[in-house]
Every structure is written in structure tokens, then in C-alpha cells.
């Protein structure tokens, strides 16, 4: 039996490192696990959508360059729950926290 921690997936392609750190901090503060994976595609919508669908928790984040987007399973591709271009540190932190709050069924910040 393969045992894997249920985690939020973060699919990235050459992401901005400081905003990635903030996204991770946002998830960690809410006490949820995450996994980061390098991907081929550069489409932000696709990264987020794939991450959400591959995650056992149904919550995923896509990041490429300066763009970040958060998705949930069941939502069609491109209709991101939240997304930013050039986010400030607080926005990245909040997006990470929201991806965790989606799992915890809490209202978004």
C-alpha cells in the first residue's frame, strides 16, 4: 500500500521564488501539507487546474513567472478562484492560506 500525505499541489514552471515562499507559508500557517512539482506547461490556468485535479484534497495552485492562480476540483479550467500577476507578499500569503482554507471548508480571507 502506498501511503501519501494528503496535500495541496503546487505546480510550478520557473516561478518567482519569493512569492512561492509566501504561498507555502500561507498554507503552512493554516496547518495543511503541500507538495511542489516542476511542470512543462507555461499556461497558468492549466497548471492550477491540473494541480487541483491531481491533489487528493482537490485544491491546487499554479505558478509561472510572476503569475499565481488557485483552483479547486470541479471548477472549469480558466475559472480560477483567485489569481494575481505580480502579487505583493501579502497577496501570495493570502492565496496560499485560501487554498488551505478551501480544504478546511473555511471562508476565504
Amino acid at each position, binding site marked *: 500500500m502506498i501511503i501519501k500525505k494528503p496535500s495541496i499541489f503546487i505546480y510550478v514552471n520557473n516561478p518567482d521564488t519569493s512569492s512561492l515562499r509566501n504561498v507555502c507559508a500561507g498554507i*503552512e500557517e*493554516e496547518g495543511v501539507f503541500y507538495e511542489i512539482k516542476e511542470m512543462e506547461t507555461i499556461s497558468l490556468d492549466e497548471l492550477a487546474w491540473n494541480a487541483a485535479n491531481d491533489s487528493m484534497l482537490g485544491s491546487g495552485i499554479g505558478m509561472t513567472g510572476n503569475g499565481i492562480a488557485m483552483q*479547486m476540483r*470541479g*471548477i472549469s479550467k480558466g*475559472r480560477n478562484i483567485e489569481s494575481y500577476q505580480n502579487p505583493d507578499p501579502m497577496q501570495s500569503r493570502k492565496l496560499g492560506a485560501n487554498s488551505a*482554507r478551501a480544504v478546511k471548508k*473555511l471562508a476565504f480571507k
Partner: protein
Amino acid sequence: MSYIAGVDIGNSTTEVCIGESTQGGTIHFLTSASCPTTGTKGTVANTHAIKAALKQAMGRIGRDVDDISLIRLNEAAPVIGDTAMETLTETIITDSSMIGHNPSTPAGAGQAVGEILLIENLSRGVPGTPYIVAAPSSYSYEEVAAILNQAEGTLDIAGVILQADEAVLVENRLHRKLPIIDEVARIDKLPDRVLAAIEVALPGQTVRMLSNPYGIATLLQLNAEETRTVTPIAKSLIGKRSAVVLKTPGGNVRENVLPAGEIYLDAEHSASVNLDEGAEKIMQAVSDAGSIRDISGQPNTNVGNMLSRIKQGMGELDNTPDADIHITDVLAVDTLAPVLISGALAGETCLEKAVGIAAMVKTRQLPMREIAEKLKLELGTDVKVAGVEAVMASLGALTTPGTQLPLAILDMGGGSTDAAVISEEGQVTMTHQAGAGELVSMLIETELGLGDRHMAEQIKKYPLAKVESLFHMRMENGQMTFMEDSIDPRFYGRVILLAEDGFIRMEKDIPMEKIVQVRRDAKRKVFVTNAFRALKKVAPGHDLRNISNVVLVGGSAEDFEIPEMLMEEFAGYRIVCGRGNIRGAEGPRNAVATGLVLSYAGEQK
């Protein structure tokens, strides 16, 4: 053939009904409409709403307001309801002696005692003394963790207070686990080098040591006298997930009892009652007093000012010298209001005792003739003031299928709850009671700490649901509803109101069960109390058992739960009670307007 309009001006809504009078003297109802009342009921400012409602109603049958040949206004009962809220206690923190709040993610668990030490002064710490370290948000979680880990060998650090929302992030990076409290907004107000006790509750629990006076005494080594003074602190920390108590020499939390003042009842059996004694005592005094001539408050107290303000408002309406303005009824309701504690460090609130009061002001007559004159001038239509409100309402209520004389009506509006009984001979007995829909809204607003009357009105009107995923929500009755399309993420995880035209989001994070309870309690406290009070006054022999039928009319009878509440209460008296259905089509609204048009037909015969 001509168009006759009936117009009913209420405290909150103006309703119109349009009927066609045929040669044979019969009335054929065509249309109706309602608009929010403009200005205080009974003033010329009302004409705006009347015109708007008439236009709306005539528009529905493709006609102009000009086509109306007669407008009949009700001789509005010269009573106006008004509401006010008085807080009876207040909590004040001096010298920042406590913090108690519910951050969403504190870290660690347990309690700790130590001296407050700001993180920039850490180098000044002395080995052997336990410290509680306070870090402002200018320090990142990595810096805080690194500094604390470095100091671990030399200093005895017992707990941490953070300004930013980073407790879990810091804790995950510490070598040794500590209780950590975060989201303390005014961390700059924490006094350096003062003994403090902090506590973080286990997941799913609330603080135990710091919400107990002896717990605080144990942690801070207080003597019996000091323990007495921390009791209000312990009380205000009940139910919190994390808390800090500081031992400052002058620091204190005081619970003040505000001088609320006395209410004087000038009645058959005159009496006075202090507002502090609570709603039950006040209502007992009001009911024991018999018929009340006037109610006033002790001068220069909260209640005195409030009652004189209400009277003054009425005085502006009827400025004839013999105006004769009296407050003839009050409804007092006990409530608890979450009030921001003055001197709080993290936005703490404390539930304070409060009394909500609705008052009923009576004058000789409202200047209805002036309104009629103005309307006549502006529309060029014949306008008549016709009929007493309660009689008209009864006439209208009788158009409800399944009703017969003798009949009692309970008119639950925005400002007042009125009752009338018509006997088989057509004799009408009536009463007006203070307190109705607006008092309910005020109670909801204060008890939930909304600070927003509009939101409170919405909560009163619509059932609740909690959005549990983007595809389903749980209704307040436990039922689940699944959606074909995903729900807007703005509503995710939130409590929402199910309005006719979509969802309304609750901005404050209050559990659905709590909102439901507050809403139902407010409605019960006002309407059930008032229904009994009012019907007892008009019932033959003042006995409810002499009433067989009650028809509920007015705006608040449209409510989705008030009629059911009353039905349950009246079931024990074998009373047939239900929401009216005016003309078999209008629901509980439009009774007075309908009565006005009907009475025209009666006058023609």
C-alpha cells in the same frame, strides 16, 4: 365606471390598492403596490411615497395616475413607534491588563508564566528568569524562530506573543515547542518587564486556567484580595481559544454599571421602575399600572433623554398648541450586546447587558388633512380622509377566505403591533402596542454586533444557509441543496442569506446556529409578547378564550416564521390563527388599503 384608490400610510411602508367601481355599486379590484414610507408617518413628506406607489400600481394596468377619480387616505392612528437601545454595563481595561481573543490559528498548547520581554531587548534577558517574548510584525517568522532558537540555551523562554498571523510558522521552526498567541494588533502597548500568564487551549477546547479566577491566582501568585479584582478578567476570557493576563500594578478590568435612570409611569396606578431592573420588571410595572396616561424618564439620564427625544419628534409633527403628546406604551426587552472593550489590545469584545425599548407616542390627531390637501394640489384628483385605520384593516382582513364575524385581527407592522376585535354587530375595539418589526431588527443588530441596520433587516427577512463546498450548501433546517453550476467562491465557507434575487454574504464570522437563535429569540420576545398583550386588551372580558379567530395582517405577518410561532402559542387557547390572505390574493399585506376601497362601496349604498 371610475377608479378608486385606497392609500395606507404605515410606519415603514405605504400601500395602495386600486379598484374599479361599477354602476351597480360593486367593486372590482384591479391592482396594488407598496413603497417604503418617505418621512415620518403622518407628515406631508409622505406624499412622495404615495405618488410613487400609485404610479407603480397604475403602471401595472397600463394606466396613468390621472385616471384615478378618488383617492381615499386612512385616518392613520395617531401613534408612532420608536426604538432605542441602552447599554447597562461597560467593561474598561486600564493599563492593558489582558488580551483574550480567538485567532484562527494559534500554535502549541498549554500555559506559561513569565516576564514580558520585547524581542529587540532579548540580549538584556537574564538567565534563570522565565520570559514571554513579544515580537512585532516587522520581524518575519524566520527571524523570530532563528532568534528564539539561538537564545534557547541561555534564556528560559516560556511563551511567545506575535503581532502577525504566523504562530504556526514560528512554532514549526522552533526546536522546543511553546504556546504561541498571534494576531495581537496592539503589541506596542504591551508593557516591558511585567509578569504575564499566557494560555493556548487544546484544539477544540477553550482556555481553562485564565478563565478561572483561581487559575489566574495560581499562575500569577495572587493573594485573596488580588484574586477578587481579576474576576472580571476571568469572566471576559470565557470561551476564548487563547489569552494573556498581565500583572500590572495599576492594571485592572472594571465592569461599570451605567446609571441608566428610572422610568416614571403616570397611570391609574402610577409607578416608577429603574431600567437596571431589567425588562421583566419594567413590563410587569407597565401591565400593573392599568391604563397609562404618559411615560417619562428621569431627567438627564439615558432613558430620560431617549424618551424626551421621541416625544420631541412627535411634537414636530403636530405643532398645534393643544398637541397633547403622550407616550402610552413601552415594550422593554433584555438583550446582550457585544461591545468593543475600551483599552483592548486585540479587538476584544465583551457581552454587555442592555435593554431595548420601543415606545408608542400618541397625539390627538395626525395632520392627515394636510397630506390630503397637498396630494389634491399635486395630482388634481379628489382626495378624502376616510375611515379609522383599525376598522379599515378589519374590513380588509374579512376578505380573507374562511373568515367570519366576530373576528380579531393582529396587525404586525414595522413600528407597532395593533389588535382589533369586530363583534357580530360590527363594533370595533382596538389597541396599539409599542414594538414590532423595527425592534426585532434592532435586537438582531445589537446581539450580533453588526453595527449595520440594513444587514439586520435582511437577517430578519431571509432564511440562512452555509456554503459547504462550491457545489452544495446546508440550509438552516439541515437540508442539503446541490447546485448544477459552481457557487461563486466569494460565498465559499460562509453563512449566506437566501434572498429572492440571489445570495447575501454575512461579512462577520458568526456561526449559523447562533444567528438562527438570535433571530428567533428576537422575534419571539417582541411578537409573541405583544400578540398576547394586545389581544388580551381587546378580547371580550380580557380573556383570550373569548376570541375564536385571529387573522394576522401587516408587513411582519409576511415573515417566514412569525406566523408559525404565533400559531403554536395560540393553539393552547383553541384559537384559529393564521396569516391573512387579503382578497384571496394579496397575502397579509394591503388590508387597510383594501378596506378603504371597500368602504367606498359601502358609502355609495
